């Protein structure tokens, strides 16, 4: 017994020292599989070449969510690849470095390249994550594309320029992988017209168009969902974002929803109240997407006034 205890302690110590945890050791409060086993990772539907999309309630992500013409609840995406028996996410991201000149936008200081993150660590950063099959593409080719660009350290594109093949932003990385896998070339859609957003985009040097992420996967049919929040809370967060997106018309200013705290945008109290009330209401509601959307819209009507927009 003592030998067993010593063995377990040694094992725990080695896991702690290596910083490694298997995906199978991680428990999410909300873990759902909507498809049968893929045969690639134990008895789960996980497979290399699937697309992972995440939702977040961070103010920066909510701000980015109001810009595209087409609403999408997702903020970041990557490609699932099973390497040496463990699932990873390959994605494109970057980090800004020190900059003291206000005329130099943070985009010009952001550096990064394709990276590989263990699936559980990737998911834990977000409110929720959903995994989908790539739209009309061969999964093996999608994974091959991801591995190639990890090895090549293909740089992150902070200017979100889809016409520049030398660097990718997150959705472009996935879109190009799907194209490589035989899927159709994704469409680029202009952002919604809004003068306030244009001022910021102009400073950042980012074109006012973006990838319609809905064309990358079949949104209606996730393979898996992982979160530490309930389905009702996930649907409520999405409904909140959709309602904010609907109401952020061409005449709205960024300042009506956000203020700048020196480092990042923060939600003003009016938006925060709708978010808080939406998530609180979700605790009393069944996981019915349409019912929750109607309830959140009713809360927004009470807070802000009925809007037919």
């Amino acid at each position, binding site marked *: 017994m003592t030998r067993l205890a010593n063995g377990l302690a040694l094992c725990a110590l080695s896991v702690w020292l290596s910083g490694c945890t298997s995906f199978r050791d991680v428990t999410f409060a909300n873990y759902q599989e909507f498809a049968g086993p893929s045969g690639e990772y134990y008895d789960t539907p996980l497979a290399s070449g699937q697309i992972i999309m995440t939702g977040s309630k961070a103010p920066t992500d909510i701000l980015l969510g109001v810009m595209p013409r087409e609403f999408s609840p997702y903020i970041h995406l990557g490609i699932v690849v099973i390497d040496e028996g463990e699932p990873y996410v390959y994605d494109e991201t970057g980090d800004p470095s020190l900059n003291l000149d206000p005329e130099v936008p943070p985009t010009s200081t952001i550096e990064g390249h394709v990276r590989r993150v263990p699936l559980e660590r990737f998911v834990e950063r977000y409110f929720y994550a959903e995994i989908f099959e790539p739209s009309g593409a061969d999964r093996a080719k999608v994974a091959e594309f991801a591995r190639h660009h990890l090895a090549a350290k293909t740089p992150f594109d902070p200017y979100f320029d889809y016409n520049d093949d030398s660097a990718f932003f997150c959705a472009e990385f996935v879109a190009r992988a799907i194209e490589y896998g035989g899927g159709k070339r994704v469409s680029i859609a202009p952002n919604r017209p809004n003068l306030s957003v244009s*001022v910021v985009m102009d400073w950042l040097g980012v074109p006012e168009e973006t990838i319609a992420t809905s064309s990358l996967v079949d949104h209606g049919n996730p393979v898996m969902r992982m979160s530490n929040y309930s389905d009702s809370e996930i649907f409520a967060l999405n409904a909140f974002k959709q309602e904010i997106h609907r109401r952020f018309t061409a005449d709205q200013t960024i*300042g*009506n929803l956000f203020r700048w705290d020196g480092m990042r945008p923060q939600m003003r109290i009016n938006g925060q109240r709708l978010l808080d009330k939406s998530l609180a209401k979700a605790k009393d509601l069944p996981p019915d997407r349409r019912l929750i959307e109607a309830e959140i819209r009713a809360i927004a009507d009470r807070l802000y006034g009925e809007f037919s927009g």
Partner: protein
Amino acid sequence: MMRLLVIAALAATLAACIPMPQRVHDEFSRYDGERPNNFLTGRHRADQDEPAQGVGE
């Protein structure tokens, strides 16, 4: 030692701050919740049961 700590703290603060030109800063300051029928701020609902509270942070 203390001076080193202060410098390190200052460097960390500067690194964490994103300077922006006034025109961009203005967009984050342009709160027009006083405008009637603003369907994002709810100021026009001030006489209703759940009025939003404007800037208030």
